[in-house]
């Protein structure tokens, strides 16, 4: 059986910490070709040095003027793209705040990182993703990282939950629209993990009660393999 991840071209946003870093490591270990994006140039450089052959790209997915530059560097690094994982997320106000105490700028910042940024990046990379689907005769894939906060209304998680709910629905609509072009847009809820983002949200959580990011990354890799396989069987 061939390794379906061998030489698969994957881009991961938010790739220097938490689930993103665990995913980059897992994909790299499975022989995928990986480009990852994160804001801090120093951390990007260190992560790329730790994983030779990966391509680290510094930039902010929440910034409109960064989007096409990032898409250019992703396409150039990998010579095209088969899978995009929109993992970078913003929590909104820290510490978490009730919606009525959330400043509109904080809501806008959460929407920029969790909804508008992924929307723009998917659009900018749709040329490569659809080319991948045509050339390899299998689906290309976008995975948007979700959260149960997108479905369940948790008090205090307003900005994050509303932006992730919007991302979830955006994914569903886009999946309908792009089905005829064999580009699948899926959501993945990794569960409550022991990550920097979770520590910001719930500083006193017991890490022992949280999933390890590497475990969620393994589940996500399995989901990617499954999604790519479904389409080629069709």
């Amino acid at each position, binding site marked *: 059986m061939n390794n379906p991840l061998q030489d698969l071209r994957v881009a991961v946003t938010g790739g220097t910490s938490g689930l993103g870093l665990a995913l980059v490591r897992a994909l790299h270990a499975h022989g995928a070709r990986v480009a990852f994006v994160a804001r801090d140039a120093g951390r990007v450089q260190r992560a790329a040095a730790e994983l030779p052959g990966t391509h680290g790209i510094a930039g902010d997915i929440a910034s409109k*003027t960064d989007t096409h*530059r990032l898409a250019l560097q992703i396409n*150039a690094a990998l*010579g095209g793209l088969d899978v995009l994982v929109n993992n970078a997320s913003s929590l909104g106000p820290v510490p978490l705040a009730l919606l009525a105490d959330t400043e509109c700028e904080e809501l806008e910042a959460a929407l920029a990182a969790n909804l508008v940024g992924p929307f723009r990046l998917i659009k900018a990379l749709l040329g490569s993703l659809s080319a991948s689907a*045509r050339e390899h005769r299998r689906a290309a894939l976008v995975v948007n990282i979700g959260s149960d906060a997108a479905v369940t209304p948790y008090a205090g998680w307003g900005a994050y939950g509303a932006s992730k709910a919007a991302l979830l629905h955006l994914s569903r609509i886009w999946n309908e629209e792009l089905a005829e072009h064999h580009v699948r847009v899926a959501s993945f809820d990794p569960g409550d993990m022991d990550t920097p983002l979770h520590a910001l949200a719930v500083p006193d959580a017991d890490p022992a009660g949280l999933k390890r990011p590497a475990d969620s990354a393994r589940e996500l890799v399995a989901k990617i393999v499954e999604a790519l396989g479904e389409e080629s069987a069709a």
Partner: protein
Amino acid sequence: MKAAHRPIQRPRDAKLLVVSAAGMLQYAPRSELANFLRRGDLLVANDAATLPASLAGIHLRTGAPIEVRLAGRRSLAVDDLREFSAVVFGAGDHRTRTEDRAAPPPLHAGDTLALGPLKARVLRLLGHARLVSLAFDGTPDAIWAGIAQHGKPVQYAHVHEPLALWDVWTRVAALPVAFEPPSAGFVIDWQLLHALKQRGVGFATLTHAAGLSSTGDPALDARLPFDEPYHLPQATVDAIAATRRRGGRVIALGTTVTRALEHAAARGPLRDGDGVADQKLGADSALRIVDAIVSGTHEPGTSHYELLRAFASDAVLARADAALLANGYRTHEFGDSVLIERGTARQSSEGVRRRGRRDRRGDLIEA
């Protein structure tokens, strides 16, 4: 024709002029392009993304400000980018017409250029004082990052506002290898791609490093288009073969697609893979693959216009030009479009008239 002066790729009022194989002319909104394609046809687009190929900087030996416009590369391989050919201008930017731009300081092999975060060395002159081969320092990732951060899209004086990358990328832009936008592709949006599916029209892509359209220097302009590397996927070769089998037509979206496909078929059956298009197409060129072209509107004398002469006789093109002018079509990369079917053996004007009555549809302006 009027120059389109704003970088709007898909204006709601964009127009299309259809030139049939018989030389008949027909007006339509460009949004109706799919209606002129038939079940079984195949539309082939160039999915190259456009590089920010204009790099401002300093010629270190003289301290003179320069603008480097990247213009060519040996291959499309993403890690083969140390060496580019480039056109060098002196001080100034796109707001000055290229014809009026200051010359750069005298360039010699070994000169170093500081281009924002990038450092480049002139390897040699390419038969002209302003055309050089240059090599960048650094790893491929660092060179791509430098170009992405510092470069600006190449643009011309007829568009005043500075272009952003999103202005010059088509909806299907993928590998960043074009030096100017493959602008015929601005006609594409996902609604069109959906309409093609609905009509049973195929869609395929190739990647072709569209080069500079103008340098402002007559001697250099006479050498355009420069050699352009391309990649033709197996899936596209297969789609063309299937189109041929069912009697459909291959419609090239733009001059770059035409140039790549005809180059790939010049020596026998169409083959997938990499090539470098180095031929010029014109009135005497026999087209082996492409049955029709969708193109922007171009002025006589340009290399783009020369290529259109492979599709239609000078008489038909002259009538099309007059119609474009009379009806206010906009020219240049953000302008209106033409769909030109390859003339059936360049019919006599008698044949054109007879067919004109039979095929009448829409706003027939010349039968």
